[in-house]
């Protein structure tokens, strides 16, 4: 125990601010929500214990729950790969750019890349609305664009595009990962007659695997939790026709519009389990495709 502390104390010191925040601010509500998920609670009368009823209702009778799952899964499966691909592409351009142009200009553009998600979402709404910027431009060339946000068959893809554009954080991590790949491996590959494409697939991707994995898990969790942008773009309703009924939006409306706190809590815990399951799957499969440089075996 003493040894353990000696060895790990610095780590815990660095974790301390987070731990304090977690235990004093977050842990209580989290536990409370677990308890509430077994009750009926409208925030006015005291909670009534109902056992597993909320969960049974959710899985057996709630069609909107399944709709929300479907929308959210579609979004996660489309937006995460899309965002990672864009992030990696931009990182590779910047990696070349930094070597050629100098770090200064890259840093100069970073703020615009990072952008806050609410501001970006509002901007996006202006661009993609029925009479928005995009359709105005399309009209100039004689194309009658759909209402990108109000048309149920395209609205989700519009959101995926928005998500793709918010590549800042994973891009920075990719950039750091790219820069840590020794240049002489590419030189050796050059002499080994590997084309640029081959170098990308045979060297860059495998050596970046730990970073890709890290970004994948983080972005997946992020995508499951998408709320701000969809709340703003769908006016908080998940409309049109529930096509943007994201899980978190459904949960939010259950809690704060219909004051079904018990049910909302149950929804939250199911989401937590879903995220945990996906993260677990990612970790389980990672050993087949993630190569860690300093791994001992």
């Amino acid at each position, binding site marked *: 125990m003493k040894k353990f502390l000696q060895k790990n104390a610095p780590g815990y010191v660095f974790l301390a601010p987070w731990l304090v925040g977690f235990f004093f601010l977050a842990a209580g509500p989290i536990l409370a929500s677990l308890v509430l998920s077994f009750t009926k609670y409208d925030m006015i009368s005291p909670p009534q214990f109902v056992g597993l009823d909320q969960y049974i209702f959710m899985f057996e009778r709630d069609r909107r729950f399944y709709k929300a799952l479907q929308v959210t899964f579609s979004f996660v499966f489309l937006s995460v790969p899309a965002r990672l691909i864009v992030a990696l592409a931009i990182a590779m351009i910047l990696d070349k750019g930094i070597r050629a142009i100098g770090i200064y200009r890259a840093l100069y553009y970073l703020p615009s890349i990072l952008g806050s998600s609410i501001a970006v979402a509002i901007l996006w709404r202006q661009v993609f609305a029925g009479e928005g910027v995009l359709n105005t431009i399309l009209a100039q060339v004689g194309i009658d664009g759909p209402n990108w946000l109000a048309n149920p068959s395209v609205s989700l893809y519009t959101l995926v595009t928005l998500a793709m554009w918010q590549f800042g954080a994973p891009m920075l991590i990719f950039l750091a990962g790219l820069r840590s790949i*020794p240049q*002489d*491996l590419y*030189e*050796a*590959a*050059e*002499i*080994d*007659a*590997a*084309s640029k494409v*081959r170098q990308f697939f*045979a*060297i860059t991707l*495998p*050596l970046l*695997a730990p970073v890709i994995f890290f970004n994948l898990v983080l972005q997946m969790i992020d995508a499951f939790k998408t709320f701000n942008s969809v709340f703003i773009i769908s006016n908080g309703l998940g409309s049109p026709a529930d096509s943007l009924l994201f899980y978190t939006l459904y949960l939010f409306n259950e809690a704060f519009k219909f004051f079904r706190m018990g049910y909302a809590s149950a929804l939250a815990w199911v989401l937590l389990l879903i995220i945990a399951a996906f993260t677990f799957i990612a970790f389980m499969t990672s050993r087949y495709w993630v*190569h860690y*440089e*300093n*791994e001992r*075996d």
Partner: protein
Amino acid sequence: MSGVSLKSIHKSYGTVKVIEDLNLEIHDGEFLVLVGPSGCGKSTLLRMIAGLEEITDGTISIGDRVVNDVPASQRQLSMVFQSYALYPHMSVRKNLAFGLQNLKMPRDEIERRVAEAAQILQIGELMERKPRQLSGGQKQRVAIGRAIVREPQLFLFDEPLSNLDAELRVQMRVELASLYNRLGTTMIYVTHDQVEAMTMATRIVVMRLGVIEQVGTPYELYSKPQNLFVAGFIGSPKINMIKADVVHSDKGVELSLPDFGKFTQPGMQTSDGKMTVCVRPETFKVGDTGAIKASGTVKLVEYLGSEIFVHVALKSGQSVLVHASGNQHFHVGDDITISVDPDEAHYFDAAGLRVERTEVGVAA
């Protein structure tokens, strides 16, 4: 196999000139070693031959082909990097096969070559390991293996042994030499270890500040250094450099050295009033059997078993290093007399260029 021809090569990074007007013919099948102090442009030159670095001006040919615009992958050469540059996520086998796969070689040919390289380098048991599971020497072997499976026309080595410990370095040096004897392929080898240079090279190129100071066989460089820099660079421990005044230069030069006094070298010409006389430690004799002598005291004794290096402080205060055989005895503080035959010394003028003694009786 083929030679390499470098014609008026220039290289600058921005305004910094790294290589200036360099000309060099590397013969087919030769083991050419580039030596020189750090930063003199050895790696840059090698990387230009490899095609990893653009040349600013000049012509590089490999064999009969001008390769200025030929990409590295098509120059039919292999390179061994100082850092090994093994692909960390690939097994040894895949590291060896990677380049051959890129050339779309049939699978059984790849397997044959990989197996042959593994056998030559005795890395058969390591084939399924990843680079991180290898020792430095093993990594080096794999890196060399990756170079030989390509069966290139030309091998390039950039300080391949400098990350190894002394013992392993000696061992790998021997292995590289025997690999060269076996393959007979042209090799260009960068090092700043002059023992490596002397033992392995068929010819050595001594560089300084992007300029070639001298090219020659190890013997030529050692016995006839063309300038002070080469004299000081080749030979370990370092050659003794003694400043001399030229007292008279009519039918040769009469030199005046501190401690050793005056003597005449007939048939030598120089217009300057100063010369540097260089004497290798092993050229000095302990005792007074040489034609010119000096006395001093023993300052430090380095006993190496078969040989001894004696640091001698001469009367004037200058100190020289003298080589003696291991069966002699020296004690710090002892008086000592050393001597040398003037013809066995090297002479350099004030500009640092070698001054030769023209044959006596032959009109200059």
